[in-house]
């Protein structure tokens, strides 16, 4: 079937210009569908084309794009995903994030595959989208509100069926790792997308849709959905997963010495049980919540005191063990605060962890912290820091810049213990024992993040893999998670955790769109996405160096001192070999710059031309 009557997509893009307070509706470009499929694919290509080199991430010329995929909203497990991207104010490079809930489906019900936000409003506004139309409303009354209150007010105003994305006070105050919050606790956009929206003075986006999503073969889709649900529910994991979700990972990480402790200095936490999924399940959890069209819901809704909060692994590890805190109630409260202020809890755990370490080393003093004893294990101190960061009060003003800038501020010694790749903080898997996972972080296209490759799971199962095997498996995994799942519009966890076959998604794509897809085709798209994003970074920097693809020094220099894997660290020589092999397998030169033939093979001649016109040499 030709691209002209392809289904699965709505075929329209909403482009909102805040400076002019106007919007236009464009046709979804066929070449984007053909070459980039959806989601992250659309975002990276459009940002590469439309942003100029050196654009101020917090200026009016940066653009925030929300993009869905061809399967978003359809009866397919986990089809509630939406990807959001822009140039990051934290890393200065490309960034995106995906979030569940039902914003993506609702955008398609409103008739759009994509929402592009450009320009900057003079005054606070929110964007309202309904069935092919858009309005920009004043948001004076919402500015300053915490995320849950803002979402509640907007839903009371426009109806509870609306999907709402908001930023919190952290986004308004341009905290560099402010994120967006949807559906009371679904977060996305770690490297500062909340701050970019804040700079544009967009407090929220409200979407309401009542249109049909076009589908090629609905009967077949339903058949596939039923088979998939049947398969998922009969897996061994199903029961534990729906009871504890990602929280099952706490004890697993600890047993394997990859649970971050004390700013990633250690990876074994004596009190891990106190912050485990079992404790959450027994004492705090009162119901499970799932995203749109998800038969394997993983949201742990917990109640404590007068608060309700959704808890998952990354948050508990980063704000718990990484800060040496074992009191689950304090951790839950911190998670609640980070959601309410709209701060990414992973980066937050890194920042506070680094601040605690600097305090214990005497680099930050009581005078800086306004009398707070910022030591590891002090939950009250950590809690106070969250507020200071969100409102940039006192030392919070420096901490709000992220660990890489904090390190610049306090001097070169500190950069050895600043845990980030390309300026984005490490998520909750320590890598002293996992060189492949370290490479996954350091080559992740948005800076350190686990979404592109949760490689540690493979690595721990096969510790004796050769360098070649390790790297080729990593690239395979990046291409599936960071390539395929980021653009088709579904959650990856059914594949990752339950082993739902990739063939399933091929069949679903065919039923949804009417076009033939193959694994090879999708891998090529993934490759294309990785190359475009890499070129985005190179264009921003004007050059590239191997050291930009290195993980934090700590993992090379300071072996673990506790736990069953005491003494472990990453061998630098081995890592360097892996990196060289990684570049080779990706078709990049020894400095990590894509070769001309690689880009040509992927049909990216326009990208070659663009880089050359900037004076960037390609091999």
């Amino acid at each position: 079937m030709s691209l002209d009557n392809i289904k699965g997509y709505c075929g329209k893009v909403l482009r909102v210009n805040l400076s002019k307070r106007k919007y236009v509706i464009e046709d979804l470009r066929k070449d984007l569908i053909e070459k980039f499929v959806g989601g992250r694919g659309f975002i990276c290509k459009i940002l590469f084309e439309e942003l100029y080199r050196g654009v101020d991430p917090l200026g009016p010329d940066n653009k925030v794009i929300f993009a869905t995929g061809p399967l978003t909203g359809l009866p397919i497990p986990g089809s509630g995903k939406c990807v959001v991207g822009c140039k990051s104010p934290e890393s200065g490079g490309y960034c995106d994030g995906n979030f569940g809930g039902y914003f993506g489906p609702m955008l398609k019900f409103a008739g759009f595959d994509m929402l592009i936000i450009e320009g900057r409003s003079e005054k606070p506004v929110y964007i309202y989208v309904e069935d092919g139309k858009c309005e920009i409303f004043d948001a004076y009354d919402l500015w300053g509100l915490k995320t849950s209150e803002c979402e509640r007010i907007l839903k009371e105003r426009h109806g509870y069926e609306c999907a709402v994305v908001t930023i919190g006070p952290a986004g308004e105050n341009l905290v560099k790792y402010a994120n967006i919050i949807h559906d009371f606790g679904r977060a996305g956009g770690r490297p500062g997308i909340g701050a970019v929206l804040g700079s544009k003075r967009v407090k929220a986006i409200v979407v309401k849709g009542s249109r049909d999503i076009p589908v090629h073969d609905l009967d077949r889709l339903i058949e596939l959905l039923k088979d998939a649900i049947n398969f998922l529910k009969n897996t061994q994991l199903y029961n534990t997963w729906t009871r504890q979700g990602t929280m099952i990972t706490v004890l697993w990480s600890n047993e394997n010495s990859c649970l971050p402790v004390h700013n990633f200095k250690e990876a074994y936490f004596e009190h891990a049980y106190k912050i485990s999924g079992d404790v959450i399940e027994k004492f705090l959890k009162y119901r499970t919540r799932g995203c749109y069209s998800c038969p394997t819901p993983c949201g742990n809704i917990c109640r404590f005191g007068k608060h309700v909060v959704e808890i998952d692994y990354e948050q508990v590890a980063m704000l718990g063990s990484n800060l040496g805190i074992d009191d689950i109630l304090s951790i839950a409260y911190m998670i609640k605060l980070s959601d309410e202020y709209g701060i990414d809890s992973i980066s937050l755990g890194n920042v506070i962890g680094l601040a605690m370490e600097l305090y214990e080393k005497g680099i930050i003093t009581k005078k800086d912290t306004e009398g707070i004893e910022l030591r590891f294990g002090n939950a009250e101190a950590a809690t106070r820091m969250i507020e200071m960061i969100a409102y940039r009060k006192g030392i919070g003003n420096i901490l709000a810049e992220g660990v890489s800038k904090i390190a610049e501020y306090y001097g070169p010694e500190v950069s050895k213990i600043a845990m980030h790749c390309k300026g984005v903080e490490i998520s909750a898997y320590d890598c002293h024992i996992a060189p492949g996972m370290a490479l996954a972080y350091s080559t992740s296209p948005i800076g350190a993040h686990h979404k592109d490759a949760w490689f540690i799971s493979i690595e721990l199962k096969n510790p004796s893999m050769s360098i070649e095997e390790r790297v080729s498996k990593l690239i395979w995994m990046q291409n599936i998670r960071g390539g395929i799942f980021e653009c088709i519009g579904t959650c990856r966890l059914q594949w990752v955790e339950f082993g739902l076959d990739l063939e399933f998604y091929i069949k679903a794509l065919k039923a949804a769109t009417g076009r033939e897809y193959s694994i090879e085709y999708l891998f090529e798209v993934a490759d294309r996405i990785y190359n475009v994003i890499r070129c985005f970074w190179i264009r921003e920097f004007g050059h590239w160096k191997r050291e930009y693809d290195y993980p934090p020094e700590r993992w090379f220099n300071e072996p673990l001192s506790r736990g069953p894997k005491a003494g472990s660290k990453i061998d630098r020589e081995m890592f360097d070999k892996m990196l060289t092999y990684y570049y080779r397998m990706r078709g990049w030169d020894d400095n990590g710059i894509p070769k001309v033939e690689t880009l040509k093979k992927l049909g990216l001649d326009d990208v070659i031309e663009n880089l050359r016109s900037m004076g960037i040499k390609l091999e």
Partner: protein
Amino acid sequence: MPRIEIDVSKCVGCHLCELVCSIYHFGTVNISKSGIRVVVYFTANNLDIIVKCCKQCDKPQCARVCEYDALVYKNGIVKLIVDRCTGCGDCIKACPYGSIFKHPDIKFPIKCDLCNGDPKCVKICPTGAIRYVSG
């Protein structure tokens, strides 16, 4: 009497029931064309999920207000006779549970018809929150 029973404490808010309802009844993917609705209410201190679906009342208010006898209570089910319906919307206003819905594309009100005794939402619900009671 046959009806749908919902245990909201088990509902995870995945909207799969709405999805299959719209597919079965209108042959389209559109959760706003569904006879069952999941609404998530969330405040700083609470999360509530409410599921709205026709309870097949034995003294149905919707049928009482319908001037055209388009809604009839028969064999324990409140049945909509589409031919008689003018789409005035009185039934939607009358339903004390807010379980009859309208959609701009569809002339008549949308309500649960129990899928001729084989409700699709019950089958798809991943947590067993929706139950069919046959009599």
